[in-house]
């Protein structure tokens, strides 16, 4: 079945403050959507609400992946259904090695009785780490502990590659990456592009989109998608900033939840 991800009228709040004011978005397998927008306009909130972060309460709407409403599921079920979020700020977990974590995640996905053998797991992990030019020692380090910003981002992509999700949300995967790392990460993402998989890429910069070509670009302000277009929209934003969008739409304060 071709992947189909539909967000319909999604509203969400944090500490009783409404941040998402009704998000509508449809992503099909094979498509890459980019979301851009000024700071504090709700982009990460959308990502967190989709994944089920405990601090965010979804107050309305649905997000269905191939007909199943993810909003009805616990976070781990959403992940096993095929949603993946590369986080803007991944957690550090002392005492849990990266490889133990990855193996638990892969096996959780595969289900009981269908676990990957240790040898196969190591082969897969090492193969992907090599693609991402990660030092093999990162397998034995504690999860994200003491990783540099860029190393954490690479580790997020490693997880994406190993977990083979259907819908990938990347929240500022380019922040903290040097130019070479950006290319490597982009190549990792591009290698995962397929008809079965859709992408939602949150970014501030056209630079990432030079490497990962989006099919659609959306602008987020005030907790809504206020404008959508093709790749040319991202280029114009890069050159001209957001003022023209605000003017066009009569928006004075683009942020959300400040009042």
């Amino acid at each position, binding site marked *: 079945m071709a992947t189909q991800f539909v967000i319909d009228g999604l509203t969400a709040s944090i500490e009783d403050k409404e941040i998402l004011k009704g998000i509508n978005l449809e992503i099909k397998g094979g498509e890459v959507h980019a979301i851009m927008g000024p700071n504090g306009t709700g982009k990460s909130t959308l990502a967190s609400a989709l*994944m*089920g*972060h*405990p601090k965010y309460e979804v107050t309305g709407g649905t997000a269905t992946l191939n007909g199943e409403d993810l909003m009805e599921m*616990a*976070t*781990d079920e*959403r*992940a*096993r259904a095929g949603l*993946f*979020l590369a*986080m803007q700020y*991944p*957690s550090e*977990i*002392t*005492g*849990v090695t990266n490889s*133990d*974590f990855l193996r*638990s*995640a892969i096996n*959780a*996905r595969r289900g009981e009785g269908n676990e990957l053998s240790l040898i196969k797991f190591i082969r897969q992990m090492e193969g992907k780490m090599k693609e991402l030019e990660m030092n093999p020692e990162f397998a034995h380090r*504690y999860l994200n502990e003491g990783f540099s910003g860029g190393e954490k981002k690479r580790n997020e992509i490693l*997880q994406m590659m190993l*977990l083979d999700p259907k819908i990938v949300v990347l929240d500022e995967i380019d922040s903290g990456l040097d130019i070479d790392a950006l290319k490597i990460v982009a190549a990792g993402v591009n290698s995962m592009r397929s008809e079965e998989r859709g992408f939602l890429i949150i970014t501030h910069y056209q630079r990432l989109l030079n490497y990962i070509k989006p099919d659609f670009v959306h602008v987020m302000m005030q907790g809504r998608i206020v404008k959508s277009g093709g790749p040319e929209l991202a280029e114009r934003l890069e050159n001209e900033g957001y003022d023209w969008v605000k003017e066009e739409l009569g928006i004075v304060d683009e942020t959300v939840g400040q009042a």
Partner: protein
Amino acid sequence: MSTQLSTPVNREAAEALSRSKGEPAWLTALRGQGAELSETLEWPKPEKVRIDRWDLTAIGGYKPQAAIASADELPEAVSNLSGESPAGFVVQRNSGIVFKQLSAELQSKGVIFTDLETAAREHGDLVQQYLFKAVAQDEDKLTALHSAIWNGGVFLYVPKNVEVELPLQALLFSDDAEATFAPHILVVADNNSRVTYVDNVSSAFEGAGAATLVKQSVVEVIVKPGAHVRFATIHHMAENIIDLSIRRAIVENDGRIEWIVGDLHDGNTLSDTRSLLRGNGSTSDAKVISIGSGKQQMSLTTGAVHVGRSSDSQMVTRAVMKDAATAIINGVTKIEKGATKANGEQTEKVLMLSPKSRGDANPILLIDEDDVTAGHAASVGQVNPEQVYYLMSRGISKREAERLIINGFLAPVVEEIPIEAVQEQLRSLLERKLEA
């Protein structure tokens, strides 16, 4: 309990039992004196844990134990704790030793590894020289009472310059709640020797509902100049047992003691592990791992007293508290005047898994010398929901996520344990108690 006397033994009874066992006169006298002291001394008063409310006098009575021919005859619940063809192995069941063995090779090197009762008869001078030297008989009611009633026990002597490669092991267990269970463990490592001792303190009661029994043990380790002793002990007895464990080491010049303590016992626990760094360049490293469950109350203390110059102490305690368990964790670093260039570091961390569980960390630094370094870190917290979310976002169930985080909390200490077999055993016991 109103039926209990404040002191469960008296001089006559203690001396009579000692004589009936054929103990040397000095030991009979020591026991008698202990019984008498116990009538006037007070129970120890650890910080914030009212152990005087525990049934401390439920020590049972002495019951002779029949020897077994091999470890195969042990009850199933403890038979897997006998270790893989150890270099030496001593088993205490309730009030007495039922099995002991030491490799011919170690015997020929002059190593003594036997029960303390036998050692007192056969190596009386040696035992008398060191018994109740690291722990004072008149320290409190517990040590006095113990000096009167201790039974079975372990004596380990390693001669000068002898290095024992493989761990010497002991299994101390109770399967009779009416029998006194009070092992005394005395380790003497002579100059420049090396040895590793590992014991399991366990129980094997049939079914639930066994009566309360106090298990009291005292460990004394004498580390002579240049000697190196690793002492690992894992406690995992049933809930009806109150575990009172006092451990002390005296470390001479350039000697080293390493403590590894697994307090995974299911009942109330007083666990007190200290090193006296008497010699210059002496060092101590203590690692304590604990899990509390049910309504368990625990008092876990590590301590180091620095007397020697350039002495070094490291102490780490990590505890996970479940259900309504309580742990008070004390770390006491004391540096005496004249212990120049001494260094003492301690860390206590508690992870609480339920709103009813409680953990307190009390780091204490007492420093009477200027030219030293010392540090402490303590934290008490809960499983971080942000971390659980992160793991769950990768498809890992909540339960498994928490399991990973809890094991991760203990891992940095468990991984540092230098004895592979102890590490493995600790891991499986940790798992068992966490899952229960």
